[in-house]
């Protein structure tokens, strides 16, 4: 079997395993939508601030479920990988001809596929709630692509932790860290409107801000080359770095016979 075939088989396994946990799936689908409804309603008045870039706070927040959903799903995939290590499945897999890169990419692909399905729900939900979308039909594809790349970046980082620790609990433990990065970004307000100096500094160096702004630019600006380049660049950079570290961790984790 080719490497691509191995990625497909292992990706299908990861995908099916995730959708067979309806509790987790429902949470990943419902929570980000609930969050945007509540926050967008609660902060609707904030769109009246001078310099606010969107017509409504709902438009401004539409990008956030894409990151939330990616976070939940990518972390769940990495937790499952940690469980595979914990239960010895990965070592049994090492006895097969499956290539290391196929095992890693297969795990990521399953999570990303599920995230793409979630994105359809978030986008449809946003449109039903009355959000606008400036970039048109092609922009929707770019939105999904950037969201999927974000899921890959988060998944690759969490997979590195799973491979280094071999523990699903340890992967679960990094959830607050991602949450911190999300909250200390331009999630709730544009960076230029952040008044608190130290917070603005953190938001400026936080790659999550650029990922959010890339997604958001498609909703509120249309086509903003700089925001998209930064969004794709940050997500690609984090993915490449995490996969490099994950590969080393993978090599030391597997005991090939």
């Amino acid at each position: 079997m080719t490497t691509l075939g191995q990625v497909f088989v292992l990706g299908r396994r990861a995908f099916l395993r995730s959708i067979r946990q309806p509790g987790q799936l429902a949470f990943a689908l419902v929570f980000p939508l609930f969050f945007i409804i509540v926050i967008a309603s609660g902060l609707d008045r904030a769109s009246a601030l001078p310099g606010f870039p969107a017509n409504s706070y709902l438009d401004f927040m539409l990008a956030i479920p894409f990151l939330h959903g990616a976070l939940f799903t990518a972390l769940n995939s990495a937790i499952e990988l940690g469980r595979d290590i914990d239960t010895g499945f990965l070592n049994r897999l090492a006895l097969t001809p499956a290539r290391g890169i196929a095992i890693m990419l297969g795990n990521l692909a399953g999570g990303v596929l599920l995230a793409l399905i979630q994105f359809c729900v978030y986008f449809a939900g946003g449109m039903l709630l009355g959000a606008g979308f400036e970039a048109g039909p092609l922009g929707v594809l770019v939105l999904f692509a950037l969201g999927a790349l974000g899921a890959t970046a988060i998944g690759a980082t969490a997979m590195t932790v799973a491979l280094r620790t071999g523990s699903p609990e340890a992967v679960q433990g990094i959830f607050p860290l991602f949450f911190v990065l999300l909250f200390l970004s331009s999630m709730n307000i544009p960076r230029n409107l952040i008044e608190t100096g130290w917070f603005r500094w953190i938001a400026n160096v936080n790659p999550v801000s650029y990922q959010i702004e890339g997604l958001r630019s498609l909703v509120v600006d249309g086509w903003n080359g700089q925001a998209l380049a930064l969004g794709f660049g940050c997500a690609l950079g984090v993915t490449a770095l995490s996969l490099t570290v994950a590969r080393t961790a993978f090599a030391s984790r597997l005991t090939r016979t």
Partner: protein
Amino acid sequence: MISVASAVAGRILWKAFTNASFLLPALLFPVIFFVGFAGGLSRVDQLPGFDYGPGYETFQFAFVLLQSAAMGGVFTGFGIAQDFERGFARRLMIGAPRRGGILLGYAAATMTRWLFNISVVFVLGLLMGMQIVGNGIDLFGLLVLGLLVNLIGGFWAAGVALRLRSTQAGPIMQFPIFLLIFLAPVFVPLTLLTGWIHAVATVNPFTAFIEGARSLLAGTTENVGIAFGIAVPLAALFALWAYTGLRSAERG
């Protein structure tokens, strides 16, 4: 009953303060909410009609204080459910001469943990420039209000955990509380909310708690009576809910 309660509380607190994986999530979330909302959204207090004197950090501290109190209570429900799944709760019930003490112990431990967490957020708030206009009595009232909300959350979750005795019941404990918290005037005063969320927030009991807490921090008495008027009976009602849950667990 007291000896049972102190043994149960001692065990939970030992576990909570000696294991970072128990201590950190409960502490980290209020810190993240406070820093994220108070730091990131501070410009919101420049909106026309935003008339809260002490400033946005204080405005958000009231929310985080009550959010951490309610969710801290829910964490206790998770602990009870986990104790049942591992068989510990059954052994505890066999060993305890007065089982009401078990509930008291869980409640005491929940309140102690919350007091620790909110102290950390309070210090952080002061470092971020939070203004406290209320005097010592106001702050004492705020603490009592927080403890009552903590008990409401704890007894609600304990009642669910004692009836269902499974960690699978986690979303049932968590989601209603989460809904109540975020369908209140979290980011702006009630008067600045519009549409459906204004209608929901107006009848949401959590709104009364938040407005009472914000008044106490601002040194005024507006809404404080309503907050306590709702919190005290609710705490009593959910204590009854948890106690009948204990009886249900005894029957198996």
